[in-house]
């Protein structure tokens, strides 16, 4: 009766295609009184760095029309604290834990990835390629096919875990970057991370973020994210894709699947509707039942 929502992302098997996006669900445990974590397809942690990071000064967030800008600056307790303190609590759930890996140099990515690979209970790594590259004046790694390939190849050497590359939309053409990531060893692509933007406070005559520039997320960017996802699916039809950007309903998630996504991530909308992930899972199920479809494969990528 209930349709099968299972999906495979390469070597990674998920009970359903609905994950939470990096940095928008804390480490996962923060939600456990509101969301039954064992229902989720997977939990992606906030991005982890080699050492604890304090993050950027406030204001770090600004609301924009149907979206928000953030410049959290990767505030986190560092990969060691995650492995020692948080991971054991997450292992209590059967849900796959995907650790998001951040770095400001290729070496940092590799060292974080290596530490996570030795820990018990990490199902896969997701490389956050929107991190500022210290060696290139703070430019995002993911804007360049070459840098993307470097990071992915280096981490590929350092981990036996399934490897997801999360791409940035701040490029003229995302396809060469996607190809570079896959050729360098990424088994799954996740797209998109936030879109660069600014916001101005007219009363105070200053930027609304202390860092001036931030990353735009939320419903506003859904058409942009879906455009990139669809183009990458057309160019690389064999690569499993994870769609992220502006999902705030089951319908939004289904749109991504129709465009070719194997799975989706919910980010900003978690803030607005903390129980949304479960609603989306239910809504996808209901759509399949209502339309007499028995698996997601039957509709994946039918909108081309």
């Amino acid at each position, binding site marked *: 009766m209930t349709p099968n929502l299972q999906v495979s992302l390469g070597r990674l098997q998920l009970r359903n295609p609905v994950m939470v996006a990096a*940095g*928008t*669900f*804390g480490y996962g445990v*923060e*939600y456990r*009184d*509101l969301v039954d974590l064992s229902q989720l397809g997977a939990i992606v942690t906030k991005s982890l760095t080699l050492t604890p990071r*304090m*993050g950027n*000064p*406030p*204001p*770090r*967030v*600004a*609301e*924009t*029309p*149907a*979206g*928000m800008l*953030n410049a*959290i600056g990767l*505030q986190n307790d560092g990969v060691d604290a995650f492995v020692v303190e948080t991971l054991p609590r997450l292992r209590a759930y059967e849900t796959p834990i995907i650790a998001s890996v951040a770095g400001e140099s290729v070496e940092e990515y590799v060292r974080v990835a290596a530490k996570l690979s030795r820990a018990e209970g990490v199902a896969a790594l997701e490389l956050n390629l929107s991190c500022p590259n210290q060696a290139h004046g703070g430019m995002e790694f993911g804007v360049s096919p070459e840098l993307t390939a470097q990071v992915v190849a280096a981490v590929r050497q350092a981990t036996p875990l399934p490897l997801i590359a999360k791409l940035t939309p701040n490029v003229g053409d995302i396809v060469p970057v996607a190809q570079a990531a896959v050729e360098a060893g990424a088994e799954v692509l996740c797209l998109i991370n936030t879109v660069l933007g600014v916001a101005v406070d007219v009363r105070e005559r200053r930027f609304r973020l202390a860092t001036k520039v931030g990353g735009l997320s*939320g*419903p*506003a960017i859904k058409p942009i994210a879906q455009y990139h996802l669809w183009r990458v699916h057309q160019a690389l039809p064999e690569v499993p894709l994870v769609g992220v950007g502006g999902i*705030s309903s089951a319908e939004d998630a289904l749109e991504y699947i129709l465009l070719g996504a194997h799975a989706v991530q919910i980010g*900003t909308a*978690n*803030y*607005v*509707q*903390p*129980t949304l992930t479960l609603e989306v899972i239910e809504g996808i199920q209901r759509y399949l039942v209502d339309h007499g479809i028995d698996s997601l494969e039957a509709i994946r990528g039918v909108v081309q």
Partner: protein
Amino acid sequence: MARYEVAATVVEHQRRAANQYELILHAPPIAQSAMPGQFVMVRPLRTHAPLWRRPYSILRANPDKGVISIFYSVQSTFTELLSLKPIGSTVQVLGPLGTCFQPVRAARRHILAAGGTGVPPLSFFAARLIPTLQPDEQVLILAGARRRDLLVGLDEFRALGAEVRVATDDGSRGYKGYVTDLLAQALEEPIPSAVYACGPNRMLKVVAELCLKHGVPCQVSLDAPMPCGIGVCLGCAVKVRLPDGGVWYKRACTEGPVFRAEEVVWE
């Protein structure tokens, strides 16, 4: 510290002043556990713009009736939408959230200092505090606003038996000047006091400095943008001094909104 996401029915929706409303919601689990200083994240409709829920301090909580109320002023689209919700409709409410005001038992005078829209959490605090006071304890309310018509909720403080002193920027009621001037005066009086304050952050900074100068314990409820309210987005960062002397960013939504004033690094 359980939190509840409730589809709360609007029980009453009263206009309390020009553009100011009290919204009474049926949300039993929140009503039963809410503490003064805590807040709820409110979503009147499933809109994409405004996108975020907004935080509102809990003004009252009646555990028996299972209702809470919030007090808000219509400022922009979000509050305009909220003001349209009729009795009987539902509003999504997540709470109770955040830290609460803690009565300082050593104090003989509890000074509650409210600036602008800072009244609601202090009103709730006064309502819970006053019945527990020893005979030699007193509550002093200091309330400031730009104009007299923006002063709200004072009668309720008085009805609870508290002394109320008022300041307006334009002198249209009470002292002409800032509520922090009233506080400076009050702290000169030789009574062991504790201060609990809510208002714009720049007022709270002055409050904190005054209290530090007088060696008076002080709790402040800080304002910060709050995308999530539950500690996951790290958007509501407040810089604090750590016990080890270092600094770090805490979350106003979960490690606050009520902070010990001496912990905050004011900028």
